[in-house]
């Protein structure tokens, strides 16, 4: 029997199972195959804060969504075309996101009475009529896996563990994914346990063959490679790109990187990544808390290092006092905040854009700090370099506002040429004939000299008490204080940031959709939809939140309406309204999840229609 092959331009798959079912790994491998194949893609992992919540329960469900296409795409997809549900909990937790008509591949072995009860199913939904509006493929994934591995010297439990590879094989067949990479990956991963490696590979191949032979699947799908810009690509998550960006910043600034950090979800992976690259001269210091993390980074910066600290959620609050000290001592420092759902502990694994005003204002006194926000996972690389450039050039702490969605989401990244990366190096102060003044200012940047210990003749003392401009001596002079408050502000206000670019193809849109940070993808996808259906809308995305590009006000005022979707209650809107007195229309949803393109398209259309 030759099966039918159908061409698709894009597919959204969601793998869902128990925390222990290996869904993140499965998703990662499917992603790797898809990247290798040459599709454009975007991913959205979603997992509970618990390490391994009790098996079979709703809070224990872990999922991984992947969107891939034959053209460039912008989001991990609004709703899946296929759901792989490894148990009843996974089905129940994800069904709400599944459009009618979508495929469900369900592991029937786990649809036992007990498991059904655990999540409140009275009857087996695979057997009653309740899923009639979807296309259900009931597959006994577990027992098929166990059968496939009968020849191996494995306990039943160990054999069952490979069921995710069976599922991966099946899906790989269904979407014509290449298999070599997964096989060599498994060989490497289990290099020390060849029996396990072989079993996993066997399960993977069994899954593939199952698709090929069973009647359950009559169609398979092909999604052609995407026509992306020429270059070398790799798939990368935001956290990894951010870590790489920091390493690149260290190389391009010729400053040794010092990371002071305390683990916290979802920022920890940056610490993990950086700690693996010691041959770049990178020091990673796992501190006793966030305060010590940022303190050590500042101490290292005083010594001439590129000081970095990374955190999320409540960790940001704890760093506030030391950031104030960095503002006062005017030393370079990079503060990476991977925003997560708050307040307080909130929902640690969920995303949000709610730390913008904290970054702007969350310190005692007038203490301005520049803010840079990446817009996509791979953009975290460039944004990190940009944050470092500003920190080093202006001798200031800089906030880099990533978020949970960027951190864990991934996309193909066209690798930059190292030779194209900006030179962000700086000069340390050196002894001259004049008496050294630690708070004398560069007339262009208003920054003060970076005079590092070890430099003869520049011995000086800095600190958190107000300083006389120039000499840097402690000063309680009222006019000096007023001057310094304004100088610190002017220095930040005067940072050279590129103009805000507007995407308004025909130049006649009356509505502008503005965004910042990780909403870029969904907004751009929504804008495409509007334009596809003939609507007119302009788009602009802010990477620099403080200072704002010089033309921001002008851009805002040149549209009848400005719509600003944010995953908060309107934080950027507040800043823009205050600064430009423009009646910005906010769209806010704070659900711990990225926006959906469809949702935003609807909102944009409403604004256009209300014109």
């Amino acid at each position, binding site marked *: 029997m030759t099966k039918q092959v159908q061409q698709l331009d894009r597919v959204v798959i969601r793998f869902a199972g128990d925390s222990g079912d290996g869904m993140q790994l499965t998703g990662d491998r499917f992603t790797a195959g898809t990247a290798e194949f040459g599709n454009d893609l975007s991913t959205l992992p979603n997992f509970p804060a618990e390490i391994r919540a009790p098996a079979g329960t709703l809070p224990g469900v872990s999922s991984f969504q992947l969107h891939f296409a034959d053209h460039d795409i912008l989001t991990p997809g609004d709703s899946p075309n296929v759901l792989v549900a490894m148990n009843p909990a996974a089905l129940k937790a994800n069904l709400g996101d599944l459009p009618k008509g979508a495929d469900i591949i369900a592991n029937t072995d786990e649809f036992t009475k007990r498991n059904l009860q655990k999540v409140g199913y009275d009857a087996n939904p695979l057997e009653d009529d309740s899923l009639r509006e979807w296309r259900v493929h009931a597959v006994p994934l577990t027992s098929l896996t166990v059968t496939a591995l009968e020849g191996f010297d494995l306990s039943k439990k160990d054999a069952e563990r490979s069921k995710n590879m069976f599922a991966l094989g099946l899906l790989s067949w269904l979407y014509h994914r290449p298999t070599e990479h997964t096989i060599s990956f498994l060989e490497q991963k289990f290099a020390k346990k060849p029996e396990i490696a072989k079993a996993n590979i066997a399960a993977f191949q069994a899954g593939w063959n199952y698709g090929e032979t069973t009647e359950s699947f009559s169609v398979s799908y092909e999604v052609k490679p995407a026509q*992306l810009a020429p270059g070398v690509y*790799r798939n990368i998550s935001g956290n990894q790109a951010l870590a790489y960006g920091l390493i690149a910043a260290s190389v391009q600034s010729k400053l040794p990187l010092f990371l002071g950090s305390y683990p916290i979800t979802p920022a920890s992976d940056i610490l993990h990544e950086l700690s693996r690259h010691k041959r770049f001269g990178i020091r990673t*210091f796992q501190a006793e808390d966030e305060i010590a993390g940022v303190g050590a980074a500042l101490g290292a910066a005083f010594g001439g290092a590129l000081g970095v600290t990374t955190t999320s959620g409540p960790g940001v609050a704890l760093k506030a006092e030391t950031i104030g000290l960095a503002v006062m001592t005017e030393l370079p420092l990079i503060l990476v905040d991977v925003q997560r759902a708050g307040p307080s502990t909130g929902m640690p694994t969920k995303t949000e854009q709610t730390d913008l005003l904290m970054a702007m204002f969350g310190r005692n006194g007038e203490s301005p700090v520049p803010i840079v926000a990446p817009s996509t996972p791979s953009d975290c690389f460039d944004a990190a370099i940009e944050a470092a450039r500003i920190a080093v050039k202006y001798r200031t702490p800089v906030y880099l506002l990533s978020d949970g969605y960027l951190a864990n989401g991934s996309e193909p990244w066209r690798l930059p040429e190292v030779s194209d990366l900006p030179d962000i190096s700086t000069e340390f102060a050196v002894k001259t004939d004049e008496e050294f003044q630690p708070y004398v200012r560069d007339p262009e940047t208003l920054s003060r000299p970076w005079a590092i210990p070890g430099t003869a003749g520049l011995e000086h003392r800095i600190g*958190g008490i107000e300083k006389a401009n120039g000499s840097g001596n402690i000063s309680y002079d009222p006019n000096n204080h007023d001057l310094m408050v304004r100088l610190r502000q002017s220095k930040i206000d005067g940072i050279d940031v590129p103009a805000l670019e507007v995407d308004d193809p025909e130049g006649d849109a009356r509505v502008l959709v503005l965004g910042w940070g990780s909403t870029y993808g969904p907004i751009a996808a929504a804008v495409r939809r509007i334009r596809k259906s003939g609507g007119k809308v302009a788009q602009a995305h802010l990477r620099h939140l403080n200072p704002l590009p010089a033309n921001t006000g002008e851009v805002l005022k040149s549209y009848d309406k400005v719509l600003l979707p944010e995953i908060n209650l309107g934080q950027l809107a507040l800043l823009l309204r205050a600064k430009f007195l423009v009646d910005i229309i906010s769209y806010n949803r704070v659900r711990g999840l990225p926006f959906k393109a469809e949702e935003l398209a609807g909102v944009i259309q409403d604004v256009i229609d209300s014109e």
Partner: protein
Amino acid sequence: MSDTLNGKGLALVPKTDAKQTLKDFKSDQEVRWCPGCGDYAILAAVQSFLPELGLRRENIVFVSGIGCSSRFPYYLDTYGFHSIHGRAPAIATGLASSRPDLSVWVITGDGDALSIGGNHLIHALRRNVNLNILLFNNRIYGLTKGQYSPTSEIGKITKSTPMGSLDKPFNPISLALGAEASFVARTIDSDRKHLQSVLREATAHRGTSLVEIYQNCNIFNDNAFEQLKDPEIRDDITLRLEHGQPIASASKAVVRAANGGLDVVPLAEAGDRVLVHDAHNPDPSVAFALSRLDEPAFEHVPIGIFRQVERPAYDTLMAEQLEEAVAQKGPGDLSDLLMGGDTWRIG
């Protein structure tokens, strides 16, 4: 440096041949402590000690927190960082672990180090970062005008405790020993010679050295250490700790107690039971027992170096890992890094 285990404390810090004097270490800033404050004596002792090290001045950094004592860096013509309350050990950790060519000092008070900064202190100690921490213990908050501190005696009447404080004080030496410190000493503002002899060992020690300095705050807690300065009793109550020497004052001696602890007995009764001080004992238990001898207070006070053992410094280990990483896989190359994952080419 008789007692020094390794003398490597400042091995990586560049030396100078230029002759230095006290004056070289005086900054142009006016000293702003209350007249009579013990901080003056400590400052003078440090300023006159530093030339002895023969280091390049620019390679010395004093980092402090907040408090009267924490103004110290302003008065030294070295690099200095007057930071925020309690955080000096953290800031200094970043500096010292990335710059082994610096002699990094932390200046802190009993409030700064043991109240708000307690956690950074104990973590610096266990890590053994290459720092000399001078803890000015005046048993009071000076700068905020006289509230009780974590070393104030129970029942202390202050502005914030008009009916007396309730909390049992920390014994900084015991706390440090409990926190795995490799070098722990105590000295006193008024005894410059002793203070400098302790600094000599502290700087020779590579790792974190904690030096508690009893310091008089004549405004808010005057005469807190009077007994130790009173010529009448001082020699009787001061038990000088010197490695390899019997532990005794003019009239008392330390001996082993029956229950496994230590006792203080009249010197005459001690005979050859007098305990000989072993600052290099890998087990901190005896040092700890010594630190408890002055409980409740000032009947007999051990002064000197309680513990001084060799242990790799944090920055050394950190640097070694970087070197090892390079040795194993060569220096980092950015292009290789970026190309390092699963890549594919388009076009």
